């Protein structure tokens, strides 16, 4: 008990030291008054951003004992609505803001790319945008037509409402009801497992997850889109065409706790969390 009493303030003090030190390293995150940060911060919105925001929130709470970060999901549109109506302090939005939403302030904390994946044994090395569209609308049904093996193509599509699907259909100018899929999946892992188990399948998933799995021996390969290789590096430098920012949005210029959290979420201190969650960290 005695030990604990001395340890607790010591560890808090240590944490504060580290935090202050990191502050002095990156002046961008400096919020001098943040020692007195108190209160509750409510974040709502995108279910893609939510796990990331929750992890960042945990670390933020650990450094400011008086702060509670409450993360609730409900989709990007809820993030927009709640932020502009003031129901939440910060909204989470897993896409760029639309023109009619430009009255909100957006703060990107990471980005996410979507790439096309095939089984490693599939001899097809690249597909043009036109070919991808034809595959997904059922005009091309056999790999032979694309100089592959004589085998029917298994088209893997995402479930309705998923933002990956939105991104994919938006880039290829497809309507979801036009897509003729043989398999509909939920999360990225399921997509990767499906393609890894079927040499004739084609799917699209989040780049970070796919890159990680491909590097760890899962038999999949990432296809370039319009000639740009699907790597997190290319998402980071903006050259990869199918990508989106993950944003925190606020109604007004963030202040106090709001500002401290957003600065923290954009700082170097959380980039390991961003990578852990298979998102692309923003180069600063």
């Amino acid at each position, binding site marked *: 008990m005695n030990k604990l009493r001395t340890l607790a303030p010591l560890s808090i003090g240590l944490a504060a030291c580290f935090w202050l030190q990191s502050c002095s390293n990156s002046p961008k995150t400096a919020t001098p008054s943040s020692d007195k940060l108190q209160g509750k911060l409510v974040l709502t919105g995108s279910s893609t951003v939510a796990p990331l925001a929750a992890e960042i929130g945990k670390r933020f709470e650990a450094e400011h004992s008086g702060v509670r970060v409450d993360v609730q999901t409900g989709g990007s549109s809820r993030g927009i609505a709640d932020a502009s109506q003031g129901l939440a302090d910060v909204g989470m939005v897993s896409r760029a803001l639309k023109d009619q939403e430009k009255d909100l302030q957006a703060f990107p904390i990471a980005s996410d790319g979507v790439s096309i994946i095939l089984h490693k044994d599939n001899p097809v090395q690249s597909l043009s945008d036109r070919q991808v569209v034809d595959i997904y609308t059922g005009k091309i049904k056999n790999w032979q037509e694309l100089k592959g093996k004589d085998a029917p193509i298994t088209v893997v599509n995402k479930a309705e*409402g998923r*933002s990956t699907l939105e991104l994919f259909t938006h880039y290829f100018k497809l*309507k979801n009801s036009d897509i003729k*899929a043989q398999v*509909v999946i939920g999360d990225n892992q*399921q997509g990767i497992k*499906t393609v890894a*188990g079927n040499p004739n399948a084609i799917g699209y998933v989040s780049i970070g997850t796919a890159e990680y799995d491909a590097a760890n021996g899962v038999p999949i390969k990432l296809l370039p889109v319009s000639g740009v290789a699907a790597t997190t590096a290319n998402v980071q430098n903006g050259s990869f065409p199918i990508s989106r920012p993950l944003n925190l949005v606020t109604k007004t210029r963030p202040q106090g706790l709001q500002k401290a959290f957003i600065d923290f979420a954009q700082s170097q201190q959380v980039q390991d969390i961003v990578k852990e969650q298979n998102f692309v960290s923003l180069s600063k």
Partner: protein
Amino acid sequence: MSLSLSDTLLIWTLRGCAILAGAIALLILIFLILEALPVLQQVGLFRFFTDASWNPVEGLYNLTPMLLGSVLAMVGSVLVATPLGIFSAVFCHYYAPAAIANLYRRLIELLAGIPSVVYGFWGLVVLVPLIGRIQPPGTSLSAGIAILTIMILPTIALSSDASLAKVPPEYLKGAAALGLSRWGTIWGVVFPAAKSGLFTGLILEIGRAIGETMAILMVCGNVVQIPQSLFDPIRTLTANIALEMAYATAEHRAALFVSGLMLMLIILVLVVAAEVISQGRIYD
């Protein structure tokens, strides 16, 4: 005779527990209806059966393929699992040596304890590629039936086992006195006597088959369509909810609650059917 204080206390505690248990079911039902109401008012129940397709983002809400998918997967697996389960229980009770019967029971119990996501994962990486070799893509109604059969087999096997054990020994002695053969005893005496228990097992197994989500989600392909053959992908009502809930907003979300309501309806019909079948006809 007046009740003692402890009796009164017990009675009221029990009443309280009963009310609470009943209220939970009612609350779920009310919650489902409340959440589904906005879309039911706007779209009407009818369109959930007559719309062109299921594209809630585009305002199309046809649930029939999912309803059919749920029922087909359930019927298929129940047709396979029921005789397997009942006859394995018969084997275990009346034919197998005690040691083997015991080992067998432990094995079945083990089968019952495996989490469904493990079955699903096994199905996705082993079963689906196998079926895919016969008829691509492999994710299909047949894969769903196979997985469901394995999953509901312990339910029917264990409950038949229990109900066979409950057959009064006098019946068996009587049958032996009449000179009935072993199979004659089972068919003519044991089955009629255990009928109610067997039916209960059947209902339990059907309930599990209808409600199963994770494994089905992984092996069935989840394409919204009415299957033309055993090798076509299907989507079940449960998979529909699991796939889309995370990203659904507004009307889309409400439409998913309608598919939850429909599941509830199926279960309700099953429970009523079970009541009608097994009511007061235990020893006829």
